[in-house]
């Protein structure tokens, strides 16, 4: 060690990066600090973010509300949500903007963080995910070899908090219905993944579309597959929870009705469809019922289905016919 190194030596600081990131997030949110965006790419990224944030928010509401429609009180750890089928739930921009995030009702702790990573080939993707990875036999012309990403199985625990709900409501200057005492402190255990995603590009930049398309900024084709989420509860009064959550400010009566209308909520995965940006319809894919989603500009398409315990998705800046051809050619 040189004399200068010795003079300047300090004990190794104990750094908790995740806690520091949470601190920064809180500050950015509290002070409403906006990130700088890079010229032309900004609208595309925002569009994708709105879509995905909305997807996450709507999925949260749908998921939480859905699992709560199961009647009865769970005395012990109980699997209350294990989807076997999917259903489209139309949502509007207002639903998205008004939708409370998970964090409004309590705290989400990742026991295993969802950390996706790149893998060199399909064989590695299959080995790391423990799934048989299906490959399309039919690809639109011009697409190169795919790049693969794997998201390992992740688990999270959600703890309801009446305090947090009050604070969130106060920030929004809204009065939520009081959280029933037995919901406060109760826990949900959420498991998701593993998942494998393949990205196909044709060597050109992603198709420039208007900010109104949820598909803008995406690669030409994405093929994804994963184990659907499973939710377990340590015991809550579900009727109370359902009426409590669906009565929250920000959830439109239409959205609440859509969620209540799901026939078999404990085994149905709701797929939120932003009606302002996209349309959806039922299609048959791989011999089962799936949902086709087309964006309103006609430039992007996606199809989602569930088969043999795996949720599949094919999406891209392709036509309905092309997307369905790719989906049906997966082997």
């Amino acid at each position, binding site marked *: 060690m040189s004399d200068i190194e010795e003079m*300047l030596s*300090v004990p190794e600081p104990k750094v908790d990066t995740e806690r520091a990131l949470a601190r920064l997030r809180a*500050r950015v949110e509290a002070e409403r600090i906006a990130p*700088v965006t890079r010229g032309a790419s900004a609208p595309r990224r925002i569009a994708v973010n709105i879509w995905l944030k909305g997807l996450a928010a709507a999925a949260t509401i749908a998921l939480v509300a859905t699992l709560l429609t199961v009647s009865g009180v769970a005395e012990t750890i109980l699997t209350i949500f294990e989807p076997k089928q999917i259903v489209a739930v139309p949502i509007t921009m207002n639903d998205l903007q008004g939708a409370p995030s998970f964090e409004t009702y309590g705290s989400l702790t990742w026991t295993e963080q969802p950390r*996706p990573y790149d893998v060199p080939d399909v064989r590695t993707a299959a080995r790391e995910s423990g799934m048989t990875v299906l490959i399309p036999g039919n690809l639109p012309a011009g697409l190169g070899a795919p790049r693969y990403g794997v998201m390992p199985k992740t688990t999270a625990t959600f703890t309801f908090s009446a305090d947090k709900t009050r604070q969130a409501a106060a920030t929004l200057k809204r009065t939520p219905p009081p959280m029933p005492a037995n919901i406060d402190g109760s826990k949900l255990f959420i498991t998701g993944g593993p998942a494998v995603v393949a990205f196909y590009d044709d060597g050109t930049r992603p198709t420039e579309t208007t900010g109104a398309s949820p598909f803008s900024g995406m690669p030409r084709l994405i093929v994804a597959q994963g184990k659907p989420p499973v939710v377990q509860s340590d015991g809550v009064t579900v009727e109370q929870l359902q009426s409590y959550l669906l009565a929250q400010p920000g959830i439109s009566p239409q959205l609440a009705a859509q969620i209540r209308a799901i026939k078999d909520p404990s085994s149905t995965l709701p797929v939120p469809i932003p009606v302002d940006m996209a349309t959806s319809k039922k299609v048959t894919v791989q011999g089962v019922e799936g949902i086709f989603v087309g964006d309103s500009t006609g430039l992007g398409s996606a199809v989602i289905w569930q088969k043999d315990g795996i949720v599949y998705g094919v999406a891209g800046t392709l036509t309905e016919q092309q997307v369905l051809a790719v989906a049906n050619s997966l082997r």
Partner: protein
Amino acid sequence: MELAERLRLGTAPGTGMPPAFEELFRKEYPRVVAIAHRVVADSDEAEDVAQDVFVSFYRKHPADAHYAAPWLHAAAAHAALNVLRARERRGRRDAFEALRRDAQAPDPAQAAETAETRSEVRAALARLPDRSAALLALRYSGLSYEEIAAALGLRQSSIGTLLRRAEDAFRKEVTR
């Protein structure tokens, strides 16, 4: 956009923080804290500096900027030096107290001695010209010549000479 980044889109519920920024934060935060800590010798203060550095980057620069890491390294050194100089201006007593918090030693007398030494060394660092002090902070936080050159906008071939000069000036200040 990296594959992993694409997959991360939407994994930050409640905030619009771009996933690329979070990735940059996770990758660079320990380094930024280490640089600031080398200068201020107080881990809490070093973390405060790191938070400010990331906030100002977040405001002004896209997370996928090619210069992101060197920018953060340089900003960490300069911001930490500003904190150090402000502390010196408030008086040595203040500076000593700040360092004693961080000087972990089983024996209070030993802790006080460590804090005293660190306090003198930091006072010397605060008196150095900005570039020399930044050079020392970056080099002794473990950055390579290439990384220092990128951070301070200098030619890599001149780092060795500049560093030796900074070290000489520093030694003189410490023994002054």
